[in-house]
């Protein structure tokens, strides 16, 4: 059935385009402001006026800072975010995969109680663990370190990664596992030789999810890492924007730099990103 463009459908398209433009307003502001020169952003009433030309000085400033004005660049913090996000994502994905496998296919006694108790951990306000967390990290020598923050993200990532993998593995026919057991595989070799090779889509979903979440996270990072040279980009960006700064072109360029990694992942692998989103909600 081909849809003809009757007034009703034209109305629908107009609405969709209108909403799309509304959603893109902040993108316009980001791009326009970051392409302006310092002089241009000084007249803040010109926020909505397009930049006079393509000026990339703001990006240079956001990347390496403006030492003479005492403004730090974000390059160091971007790197910190990478150092933080990559290991934390990999570790929590692996843990989630193992847990998901066991919970989906080897229900031990009490598993039906343990799993909801695990899941509760992903809903709590992290404020309610923050004080003991900082105390404990300090006590074990990880206070104020990137490794401490990595540990935190791995631990609090367990519930969601386990949930996604459990639901993913639940779709793998149990026959496959039983066939492998009869073929001679034990619990670990079933995982390693049969389930793990089938896990790629699950890993893509979980890795994207964890990458995005950890990259974007703020509360743990700002509570645990006090040293500016260790902070990930979210914390550094907030500190930059929160100061009495006038270089808004630099702030907007920095915001873009902070946003680009997750934005790229979203645009390239959006399908898997949405799957992760829905996995975290539709099925508790």
């Amino acid at each position: 059935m081909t849809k003809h463009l009757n007034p009703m459908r034209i109305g629908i398209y107009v609405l969709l385009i209108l909403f799309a433009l509304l959603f893109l307003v902040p993108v316009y502001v980001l791009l326009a402001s970051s392409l302006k020169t310092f002089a241009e952003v000084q007249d803040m009433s010109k926020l909505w006026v397009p930049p006079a030309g393509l000026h990339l000085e703001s990006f240079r400033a956001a990347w390496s800072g403006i030492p003479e004005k005492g403004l730090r660049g974000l390059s160091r913090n971007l790197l910190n975010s990478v150092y933080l996000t990559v290991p934390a994502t990999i570790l929590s994905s692996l843990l989630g995969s193992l847990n998901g496998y066991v919970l989906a296919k080897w229900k031990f006694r009490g598993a039906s109680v343990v799993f909801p108790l695990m899941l509760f951990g992903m809903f709590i306000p992290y404020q309610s663990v923050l004080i003991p967390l900082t105390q404990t990290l300090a006590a074990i020598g990880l206070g104020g370190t990137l490794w401490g923050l990595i540990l935190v993200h791995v631990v609090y990532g367990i519930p969601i990664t386990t949930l996604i993998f459990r639901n993913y593995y639940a779709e793998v026919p149990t026959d496959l596992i039983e066939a492998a057991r009869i073929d001679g595989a034990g619990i670990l070799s079933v995982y390693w030789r049969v389930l793990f090779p089938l896990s790629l889509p699950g890993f893509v979903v979980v890795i994207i999810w964890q990458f995005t979440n950890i990259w974007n996270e703020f509360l743990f990072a700002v509570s645990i890492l006090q040293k500016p040279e260790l902070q990930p980009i979210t914390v550094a960006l907030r500190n930059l924007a929160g100061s009495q700064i006038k270089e808004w072109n630099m702030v907007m360029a920095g915001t873009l730099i902070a946003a680009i990694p997750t934005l790229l992942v979203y645009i390239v692998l959006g399908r898997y990103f949405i799957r992760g989103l829905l996995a975290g909600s539709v099925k508790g």
Partner: protein
Amino acid sequence: MASVTYEHVYKKFGNVIAVNDMNIEIADKEFLVFVGPSGCGKTTSLRLLAGLEEITSGDIYIGDKLVNDVPPKDRDIAMVFQSYALYPHMSVYDNMAFGLRLHKTPKDEIDRRVKAAAGVLGIEPLLDRKPKQLSGGQRQRVAVGRAIVRQPKVFLFDEPLSNLDAKLRVQTRAELSKLHKRLATTFIYVTHDQVEAMTMATRIAVIRDGILQQLAPPQKLYDLPDNVFVAGFIGSPSMNFFDATLVEQDGKLFVVSDTFKLQVPVEKMGTYKEYKGQEVIFGIRPEDIHIKAYMPPGVVSADMKGKVDVTELMGNEIFLYLFTGKKPFIARVDPRAHVSPGDIIDLSINMGNMHLFDPKTERAIR
């Protein structure tokens, strides 16, 4: 090659008894079929033997070895699953080689066995393909091939034909029978399809509600069912059952209901005389009810009337759905018969093949 023994095997899932005091001795090289309605415990019985479920109590032996606590991989069995359970990320070759690799079989030996099995099953051209690229029938063969290469003592089949279309199923049935003869190994096979059971088995175990109803060769099961359930389950269309009374008159014995009175053949009188004057369940298979005009010769028959409700022409025969009084029953009759719904017709009952069951125990009276 090995015998298999179930001794007082129980399996409970919570409060549900899935397998209830199972006692079976399966001889070496037998083709034993577990058959029964869905949920009867036949698949559970097989999975207990495979080690995929733990038995609640009792013992299972493969050969002389008690396997209660032996993990599946050490039971020397192979299994073909209903879904085939082919590893989707492995080629056909790797699917078949997987078990051998896990058992540390030398490489050239693996290669030899896989190729040999592929030859037997005619799947050599498929060895490099992934399961996704195969048709249903080809997948089924690969699943069988994966079992064959293991050269197990016992082959287990869990409804391996139920995902095939009707034509392929008939063809594969014959091939499995041939394979059984060729491998000369114990086959244990689960199905809900009594035709599969009848055509392939050396013996059939009929199971209902976790309880073994009868264990016998196909023909014996058909001719001499032990109880009403087996009699009704084996054979299609099912055996007809009528509530009746056994009455003695003038030295003859009759099966009597409100609407018919059928004489028991003289040679069977001895078997049934203890039930004289008592209520019985009278069983007769549809093919033992003939239209009087087309009755084959040499049949010890008794006459009754039936009112035709529906006729189904099958080509080589006609299924007649009939009534005697308010009681419906089915007859398989000669295709030359011209009957129409509403007709009241004369029937001859082949009383030589009559069955009587005790209405209280539902057991056959013999």
